[in-house]
């Protein structure tokens, strides 16, 4: 059976502010989708809503995984059902070693029925796998002993997110600007790594402004978000076009969505000042 993550007419608000206004997207296992769009259009909101962030309220619409209602699941249940998100700004957990965190997470995701307090994956077995995956991603083994995202550079955080993707092997992954803040070499490495781990092996939703991350992950579909809606869907040539020429054509073609986008951006700026 091919796994399917299906988003239908999704409306999401933060506080009383509507951000997503009816998003439809079907992600089949093995497909790669690029999600592009100007700042403030709602790309990260879609990712966070899929993952179940408590600050993002789904006001209507549905998300299902193989027909099961994802919105009924707590974030940890979603993770164990096979949904993953690589965060744009992952949180630091001081004092918790990457290896310990990953062993716990990996155990829970691989054994979704595990009860609290039950055994974790045996240490030896886990360490061996972690070491192999890290070598494969060309990561220094020292990384496993560092505290989760604590004092990591932007690049290290993104590498850590990719390592988690490799260990957790989700069915579907949202990668939220996993290329931002990286230099050209680092982006190429990230692109290769993601392709290696996930391309055609998972359903990937790659949020990006650039086409470099897509170099090794040619998208089957490219979606453009504006004002909380997917206004256009095309193939990989759409991603190339947007990267080269920007969003001017899109903004002109969808003036209503553009107006909403500008309004949200202006409100964000006001809040930032307040």
């Amino acid at each position, binding site marked *: 059976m091919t796994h399917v993550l299906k988003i239908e007419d999704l409306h999401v608000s933060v506080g009383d502010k509507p951000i997503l206004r009816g998003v439809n997207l079907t992600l089949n296992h093995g497909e790669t989708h690029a999600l592009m769009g100007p700042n403030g259009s709602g790309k990260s909101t879609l990712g966070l809503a899929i993952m179940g962030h408590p600050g993002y309220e789904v006001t209507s619409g549905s998300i299902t995984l193989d027909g099961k209602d994802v919105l009924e699941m707590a974030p940890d249940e979603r*993770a164990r059902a096979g949904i993953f998100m690589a965060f744009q700004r992952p949180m630091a*957990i001081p004092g*918790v070693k990457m290896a310990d965190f990953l062993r716990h997470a990996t155990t829970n995701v691989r054994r979704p029925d595990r009860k609290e307090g039950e055994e974790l994956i045996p240490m030896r077995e886990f360490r061996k796998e972690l070491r192999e995956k890290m070598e494969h991603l060309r990561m220094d083994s020292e990384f496993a002993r560092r505290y989760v995202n604590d004092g990591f550079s932007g690049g290290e955080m993104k590498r850590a997110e990719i390592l988690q993707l490799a260990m957790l092997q989700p069915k579907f992954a949202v990668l939220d600007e996993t290329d931002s803040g990286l230099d050209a070499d680092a982006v190429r490495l990230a692109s290769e790594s993601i392709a290696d781990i996930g391309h055609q092996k998972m359903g990937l939703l790659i949020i990006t402004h650039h086409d470099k991350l897509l170099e090794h992950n040619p998208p089957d579909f490219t979606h453009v978000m504006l004002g909380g809606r997917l206004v256009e869907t095309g193939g990989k040539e759409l991603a190339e076009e947007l990267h080269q020429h920007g969003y001017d054509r899109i903004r002109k073609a969808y003036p209503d969505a553009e107006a909403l986008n500008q309004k949200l951006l202006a409100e964000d700026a006001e809040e930032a000042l307040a």
Partner: protein
Amino acid sequence: MSTDAPAEPKTEIGEINKYNFRTETTGVFKAKKGVNREVVNQISDIKNEPDWMREFRLRSLDIFESKPTPKWGGAIDIDFQDIFYYLKPTDHQGKTWDDVPQEIKDTFDKLGIPEAEKKFLAGVKAQFESEVVYGSLEEDLAKKGVIFTDTDTAVREHPELLREYFGKIIPPEDNKFAALNSAVWSGGSFIYIPKGVSIDFPLQAYFRINAESMGQFERTLILVDEGANVHYVEGCTAPMYSTESLHSAVVEVVVKRNARCRYTTIQNWANNIYNLVTKRAYAYGDATMEWVDGNLGSKLTMKYPAVHMMEPGARGEILSIAFSSAGQHQDAGAKLVHEAPNTTGQIISKSISKNGGRSSYRGLVSVHPGAHNSKNNVVCDALILDAESRSDTYPYIEVSEQDVQIGHEASVSRIGEEQMFYLLSRGLTEQEASTMIVNGFIEPLVKELPMEYAIEMNRLIQLQMEGSVG
């Protein structure tokens, strides 16, 4: 909620404390409840003590009676006449494991101590109730001249050392509870490390309270001679009882020139116990004294390990962790007193409060006249897990010199929604995620503990965290 519905019994506190059991003891002797000259004389009689110790006890009793109960810190509501001050479970001290009575072994079994016992090196002292009942000292330690015994034995066998130091670092006049301990003390460890001797494994003690309404007043004295080095570890868990119980220890440490001493404690008291402890060390020229202090459980803990840096180059370091839950108040902290030039002190304190628990950091940094070029740094971080819990900081700083460096950083944080969401998004449950964040918070201190204590500490935190999310 309707007002006539019967209140839900509050069982959570009891469930959190895994060590909520008791074993019947057939104490050979049980003093009457309460404290007076007769009881103190009786304790001294049973121990067959020299006159100087009897006089010390009686003088201390007078001081105890003349001092009011402190009004600061936490709420102390103790009926001093409703407590047993001495209890002796066996006639003689066990020399080997076989000598230890079965009922005591049963209690240790419930605590999982036999497993630890296997790992423990020969330096183990186990205290059951007021007396040390089991202990053996590795032969080569004895050959090096190391003395590691219970303090009662030390009074008989090492009178010259005891008379010189006992009650000199912490005199009975110091505070009401030090006076009480001085009057009725029993058990505790006496350690002497001769000049230049370095002990490369931790000396350990396990002790616990096990008699209803029984106070435990152990008395520990550690002397680390010039250039010597020792790490002493004590840990204890206590069964839970319904009536108030008092634990009031006194720990005195002397660290001579160029010597080093680390004293590590993890205490997980039952939730009805007052834990009012006085700990103080004198560190002489270029000596280092470190207190590592973990406090869990108890109704009220008041404990401020102190280092007095007496001569140039002395160092004092205090690491403390406090975890308070429902009905618990941890008033813990540290004191560093710079009495000489070029001395260095550091305090790192971490506290966690949950389910309405209260943690206070109370610390003193004092730089005496003449202690120029001294350095002191204090970092205290508090983590509050819910809106019902509370954390306070009471830093006292007295500086009598100009050319000193004094730093103080304090932070209070709550588990952030974003941190929580991040861990949940990786498949951890709320319980697992909050436990992980708390363990991470105290990690900088836990990594200073010997391995088995670090594991124990994490396990205790996990027990404390159970049922904290809901």
